[in-house]
C-alpha cells in the first residue's frame, strides 16, 4: 500500500544556508532529460537521464601500405593513440529528505539548460502534495504514474542490471549481508512492499504482475499505534526505542501459559502466544521501549506469516521485501528475517534489495523513457558515482545533520553499456555461478590485506595517470582528485565492506577504473602498451621459429611456458610493475627463468598433454590478458599451434581499457601486424578460423555471466569445446572455481606473494588448471 504523506515530519522548512555541493550532487544536469520523481513520506528520489562526455583513448593503425615489409617499419610506432571525446548515457538517481525538496528544485532549475524536457514523471504518496511546487519551480508538467507499476518496473531493472542487488540479512553472522547471485531468470518472484500497509505482489514477467494480497497491518500501524502507545512521534525514534526494549515484559509467551514449552506441538517456551497479552492481565506500567519492541515483533511476525502463506499458495521461493518499514533498517530486516525463518523453517529466505529506496523512481523514469528502450540495453552500476548501501543512515536525526552543514543525500549512477550482456553459454550452471573466488565481505583477513594493498598501490596509480598525460598541465590536479575519491571509497569499504554488494578484488579493481574514468584518465597505460607491443612484435618471428625447431613434446611445453612467462608481464601486479618500472630490459627469457619449476602449484600439464595427443578441439575460446609480450609472444605462438592442429580460435579481449590489458581495438591492429608476418595467422585470420571478439567489459577481471551478446553467439555457432582463461584477474581472482560445460584451461602466474602464500606457494608460482567436465555435468 502507498506510503501516505509523512505527516509528522511537519515542517518542510530547512536552513537556507545549506549549499548543495554541485560537484557531487545533480551531476551532468546540463544534458539532463527525462526526469522522474518519487516522493515518499520522508524521502524524495529524483531520477534523470543524462549524457556524459568522457575522454577515451582510441588506437588507429598507421598506414603502413606504402612499406613493403615489416622490417622497414622498424622504429616507427605500430599505431597511433589519440584521445577522443565520447558520449555515453548515464542514469542518475538522487535520494534526499523531503525537507530539502525546494532547495533541490531551485538548484535543478538553475542548472537545467536543456529545454526539450516538458514533463516529469511522478510517483509516490507525496507526488500529489508537491505537484504544484514542482510545476511552478521546474516549469515541467507533472505526469503521475501508478505507484505499484513503477515499483515493479524498478525492481525488475535493478535485479537484472545490478549484480549483488539482493541480499539476505543475518544479524549475528560474521557478515551481516549475504549477497545473492544474479539469477539469469529473475522471474517469478514475490515482492512484499511494507509501506503504511502491506502489498503482496506476484511478478511473473516484465509486464505481468498481480497484487495477490496485502494486509492493513504495516508500517503505518507500527508508526500510528507506536505513537499512541509511547508518545513518540517519529518513525525512526520508534525503531530506536524498539531496539532497546524487551518484548517479554509485554507479550504473553508460551511459557507464561504452559510454564515451559508446548512440547507436543514443538512450540518453544519463548514463542509469543499473545502479543500484548501481559498488558491485559497486569496493572503495572510498561516502558516505551518494551511496548515498541512488542509492537515491532507483532507486526513483523504478522507480515512474515502472511508472506509465507502467500509464497506457499503460489509456490514461490524468492521473496523480496521493501517499503519504508524495511529501507535499510537493520532492526526491521532482522525481525522480518526471523519471522520468515520461523514460519517456513528455512524453505523461503527473506531477501532485501540494496537500491530498494530507488525502485519507484527508477520505475517512473523507465515509464517515461520507454521510447529510448532502456530495457534493450545492459546497464552497470558506476561505483565512482554511487554512494553504496546505507549512506544516508536512517538513524541520524536530519535536524542535527542540517546543523552540521552537510547535505545528506545518496546517489546511484548507472552507465548504459554499449553492449548487451549475457551469460557465457558454456557455464555449467548459470544459477550457481559466482565469478569471484574470495568474498572479502566474509573473509576479514583477505579484506584487510587487499584494502591495504590497493591503498598502498594508489601512489603508483596516481603517478602513472599523470605520466600518461604529460602534455596536460592540469592532469596532476585531476589525478589528485582521483586519489581522494578512490581513497575515500577504500575508507568507506573498510567500514562498510558490503556498501556495493560483496567486496571482491574485482570490485576494488573496477571501482578504481571507474574513478580513473571519472577524472578523465581513460587509459593510463596506453603509451606503455603501445611501447611494449612494438617491442614484442620484433621478437615474434624469432619466438615462433625457435619453437618450431623443437620436437612435438618439447614444443608443447615451450608454448605453455611461453604463455606463462608472457603472463608475468602484468602492470596490475605491484611486484611486477616495480620491476618493469625500474628495469625495462626485463625480458621474456628472464621471465621464463622466474617461473616456478614443475610440478607447479596447480599442475595439470600431463593431462593437458595427453589431451593434446588426441583429436583437435573444434573451437577454442581464449580470454586474453595483457598487451605486449603476453599477447604477442605468449598467446599468439600458442594459438598458432592450435590453429595448425585444426582448431578454430576465438580471442576474447576487453571492450575498453583496464590496466595494461589488451583491448579489442588494439588486438585488431596487432593481429593484422602479426598476420602480415606470419602466413599461418594470416590464412587463419582471412578464413575466419581466427576470430576476434570483445568481451563487453572494461575490467581486469572477468564475469562470465555478463559477456557481450555477440561473443555468446559466436561461441554457440562455432561449437566451442575449449575455454582458456589467462591471468590472475580472470583465472585466479575470478573464475578459479567456475565450472564449465566443456574443457577448460585456467592458467596464471601468481605475482602477489600474499596470495601465493595463501594458496600454499611462493611468488611466481604457476597455476595450470585443466578441467574436463564429468559425464553427468555434460548431460546437464
Amino acid at each position: 500500500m502507498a506510503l501516505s504523506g509523512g505527516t509528522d515530519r511537519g515542517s518542510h522548512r530547512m536552513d537556507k544556508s545549506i549549499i548543495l555541493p554541485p560537484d557531487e550532487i545533480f551531476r551532468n544536469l546540463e544534458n539532463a532529460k527525462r526526469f522522474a520523481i518519487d516522493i515518499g513520506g520522508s524521502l524524495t528520489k529524483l531520477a534523470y537521464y543524462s549524457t556524459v562526455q568522457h575522454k577515451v583513448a582510441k588506437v588507429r593503425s598507421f598506414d603502413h601500405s606504402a612499406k613493403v615489409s615489416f622490417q622497414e617499419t622498424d622504429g616507427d610506432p605500430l599505431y597511433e593513440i589519440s584521445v577522443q571525446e565520447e558520449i555515453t548515457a548515464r542514469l542518475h538517481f538522487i535520494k534526499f529528505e523531503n525537507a530539502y525538496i525546494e532547495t533541490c528544485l531551485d538548484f535543478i532549475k538553475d542548472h537545467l539548460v536543456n529545454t526539450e524536457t516538458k514533463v516529469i514523471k511522478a510517483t509516490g504518496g507525496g507526488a500529489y502534495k508537491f505537484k504544484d511546487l514542482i510545476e511552478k519551480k521546474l516549469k515541467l508538467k507533472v505526469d503521475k504514474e501508478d505507484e505499484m507499476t513503477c515499483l515493479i518496473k524498478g525492481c525488475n531493472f535493478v535485479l537484472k542490471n545490478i549484480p549483488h542487488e539482493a541480499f539476505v540479512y543475518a544479524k549475528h553472522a560474521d557478515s551481516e549481508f549475504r549477497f545473492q547471485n544474479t539469477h539469469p531468470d529473475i522471474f517469478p518472484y514475490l515482492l512484499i512492499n511494507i509501506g503504511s500497509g502491506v502489498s503482496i505482489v506476484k511478478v511473473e514477467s516484465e509486464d505481468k504482475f498481480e497484487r495477490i494480497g496485502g494486509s492493513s497491518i504495516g508500517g503505518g500501524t507500527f508508526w500510528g499505534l507506536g505513537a499512541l502507545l509511547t508518545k513518540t512521534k517519529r518513525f525512526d525514534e520508534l525503531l530506536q526505542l524498539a531496539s532497546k526494549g524487551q518484548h517479554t515484559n509485554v507479550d504473553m509467551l508460551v511459557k507464561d501459559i504452559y510454564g515451559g514449552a508446548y512440547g507436543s506441538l514443538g512450540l518453544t517456551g519463548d514463542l509469543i502466544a499473545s502479543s500484548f497479552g501481559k498488558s491485559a492481565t497486569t496493572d503495572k506500567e510498561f516502558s516505551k521501549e518494551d511496548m515498541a519492541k512488542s509492537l515491532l515483533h507483532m507486526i513483523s511476525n504478522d507480515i512474515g506469516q502472511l508472506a509465507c502463506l502467500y509464497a506457499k499458495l503460489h509456490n514461490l521461493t524468492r521473496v523480496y521485501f521493501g517499503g519504508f518499514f524495511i529501507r535499510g533498517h537493520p532492526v526491521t530486516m532482522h525481525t522480518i528475517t526471523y519471522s520468515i525463518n520461523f514460519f517456513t523453517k528455512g524453505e523461503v529466505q527473506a531477501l532485501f534489495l540494496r537500491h530498494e529506496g530507488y525502485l519507484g523512481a527508477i520505475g517512473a523514469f523507465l515509464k517515461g523513457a520507454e521510447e529510448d528502450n532502456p530495457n534493450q540495453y545492459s546497464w552497470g552500476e558506476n561505483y565512482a558515482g554511487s554512494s553504496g548501501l546505507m549512506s544516508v543512515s536512517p538513524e541520524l536525526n536530519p535536524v542535527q545533520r542540517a546543523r552540521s552543514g552537510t547535505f545528506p543525500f545518496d546517489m546511484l549512477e548507472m552507465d548504459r553499456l554499449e553492449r548487451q550482456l549475457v551469460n557465457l553459454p558454456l557455464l555449467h550452471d548459470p544459477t550457481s555461478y559466482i565469478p569471484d573466488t574470495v568474498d572479502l565481505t566474509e573473509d576479514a583477513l583477505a579484506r584487510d590485506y587487499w584494502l591495504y594493498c590497493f591503498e598502498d598501490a594508489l601512489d603508483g596509480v596516481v603517478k602513472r595517470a599523470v605520466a600518461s598525460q604529460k602534455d596536460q598541465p592540469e592532469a596532476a590536479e585531476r589525478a589528485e582528485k582521483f586519489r581522494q575519491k578512490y581513497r575515500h571509497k577504500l575508507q568507506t569499504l573498510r567500514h562498510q565492506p558490503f556498501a556495493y554488494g560483496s567486496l571482491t578484488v574485482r570490485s576494488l579493481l573496477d571501482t578504481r577504473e571507474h574513478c580513473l574514468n571519472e577524472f578523465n584518465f581513460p587509459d593510463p597505460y596506453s603509451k606503455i602498451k603501445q611501447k611494449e607491443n612494438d617491442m614484442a612484435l620484433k621478437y615474434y618471428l624469432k619466438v615462433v621459429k625457435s619453437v618450431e625447431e623443437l620436437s612435438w613434446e618439447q614444443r608443447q611445453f615451450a608454448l605453455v611456458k611461453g604463455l606463462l612467462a608472457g603472463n608475468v608481464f602484468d602492470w596490475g601486479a605491484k611486484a611486477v610493475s616495480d620491476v618493469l618500472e625500474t628495469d625495462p630490459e626485463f625480458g621474456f627469457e628472464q621471465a621464463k627463468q622466474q617461473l616456478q619449476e614443475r610440478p607447479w602449484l596447480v599442475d595439470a600439464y600431463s593431462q593437458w598433454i595427453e589431451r593434446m595427443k588426441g583429436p583437435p578441439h573444434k573451437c577454442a575460446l581464449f580470454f586474453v590478458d595483457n598487451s605486449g609480450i603476453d599477447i604477442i609472444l605468449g598467446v599468439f605462438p600458442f594459438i598458432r599451434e592450435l590453429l595448425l592442429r585444426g582448431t578454430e580460435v576465438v580471442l576474447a579481449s576487453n571492450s575498453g581499457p583496464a590496466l595494461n590489458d589488451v583491448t579489442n581495438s588494439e588486438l585488431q591492429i596487432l593481429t593484422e601486424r602479426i598476420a602480415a608476418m606470419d602466413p599461418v595467422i594470416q590464412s587463419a585470420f582471412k578464413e575466419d578460423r581466427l576470430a576476434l571478439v570483445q568481451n563487453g567489459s572494461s575490467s581486469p577481471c572477468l564475469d562470465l555471466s555478463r559477456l557481450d551478446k555477440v561473443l555468446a553467439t559466436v561461441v554457440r555457432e562455432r561449437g566451442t569445446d575449449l575455454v582458456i582463461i589467462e591471468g590472475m584477474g580472470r583465472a585466479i581472482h575470478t573464475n578459479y572455481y567456475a565450472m564449465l560445460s566443456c574443457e577448460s584451461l585456467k592458467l596464471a602466474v601468481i605475482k602477489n606473494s600474499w596470495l601465493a602464500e595463501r594458496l600454499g606457494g611462493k611468488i611466481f608460482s604457476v597455476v595450470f588448471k585443466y578441467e574436463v567436465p564429468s559425464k553427468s555435468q555434460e548431460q546437464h
Partner: protein
Amino acid sequence: MDIGGTLVKLVYFEPKDITAEEEQEEVESLKSIRRFLTSHTAYGKTGIRDVHLELLDLTLWGRKGSLHFIRFSTHELPAFLQMGRNKHFSSLHTALCATGGGAFKYEEDFRTMANLKLFKLDELECLIKGVLYIDSVVSSGLSECYYFEHPTDPELCEQKAYNLENPYPLLLVNIGSGVSILAVYSKDNYKRVTGTSLGGGTFLGLCCLLTGCSTFEEALAMATEGESTRVDKLVREIYGGDYERFGLPGWAVASSFGNMMCKEKRESVSKEDLARATLVTITNNIGSITRMCALNENIKRVVFVGNFLRVNTLSMKLLAYALDYWSKGQLKALFLRHEGYFGAVGALLELPNPS
C-alpha cells in the same frame, strides 16, 4: 477444566437422577460443591456461570443431568485452589481432568495447595472432542452451530442455524489469548496448521493500554460505540476512491492505525474509536490468515471458536463478512454457541478413562 492464558473454563456435570440412597451416601463435601456451583451465577471477583449455555437433560455415562459452564480469570486460580482446599475437593476421590497450558503450569500448585492430582490432556485434542460432542448432543432448541446469511449486506444479514453433521474437512480457528488454526479431517486426524499471537489477548492488552479499560466487556462496549475509520487509513484516503488497478475497494483498510501517524488526528480520536480500531484490526487479521490457511489446505468450511467471540457479534459479523467477501463467496464462516468451552468439555469427556 481448561486453563488458558487469560481465562479458566470449568465444565461441571450435575447429575439430576440422584436417588435417595445415593443422596444419603453422598459425602457432605460433594453436596456442598454442587450447591455452591448450581445455586450461584457468579463466584469471587471474576467467576461467572454462563446460565444461557447450560445444557439440560443430558445423558452422560448413563446418568441424566445438566452441564454447567463456568469461567473465571486465570489470575484467580490461587483463590480457586484455596476454595478447593476449604471445600475438601480432594476427599472426593475423583479425578480432575485439565487441559490448556495452565494444566501444565499449575500442576504443582494443584497438588500442593489443594492436594489435587490433575489428569493433563492435550488442548487441541480436547478442543476437537468437545466441539464434536456438544454439536452432537445439542439437537433441540437453539442450534449449536450457526452462520450469518448475507454477511456482506448489513440490512439482510441474519443469524441462521447450520447443520454440522458432516463436518469434515474443517478449519477450526480457536481465538483465545492467541490463535490456533487446526485442519480437521476426521475425529482423530487433525493438525495444527499455524497460529498467530494477534488474538484476544492482544485486543484486550492494547485496549487496556490505549483506553485505560480493564475488562473484556468494557473494551467491547467501547468498541461498539466507536468508529474505526477515524483511526485507520482507508484505501480511498490514499487513492481518492477504489484502487481499481488491483481491485481494492475504497472502504478497505489500507493501514490499520494509519491515521494515527498524524498528530492532529491522534488528538481528535476517542477511546471508543481506538477500541473499535483495535477490534477491527485484530479481527480482520485473523480473517486474513484464516482465509490463506483455508486456501492452502483447500478447506471451505471454517469454524471459529474461543472466548474472544463471546458476546462479540461485531467480530463474528466482521469475520463472516471478510471470509465471504475476499473469497468471493467460496468460504463459509461458522460459529458455535459454546464458543470458549470446548476444551473443557473435551477434558470432561476423558473423565471415565484417565490414563
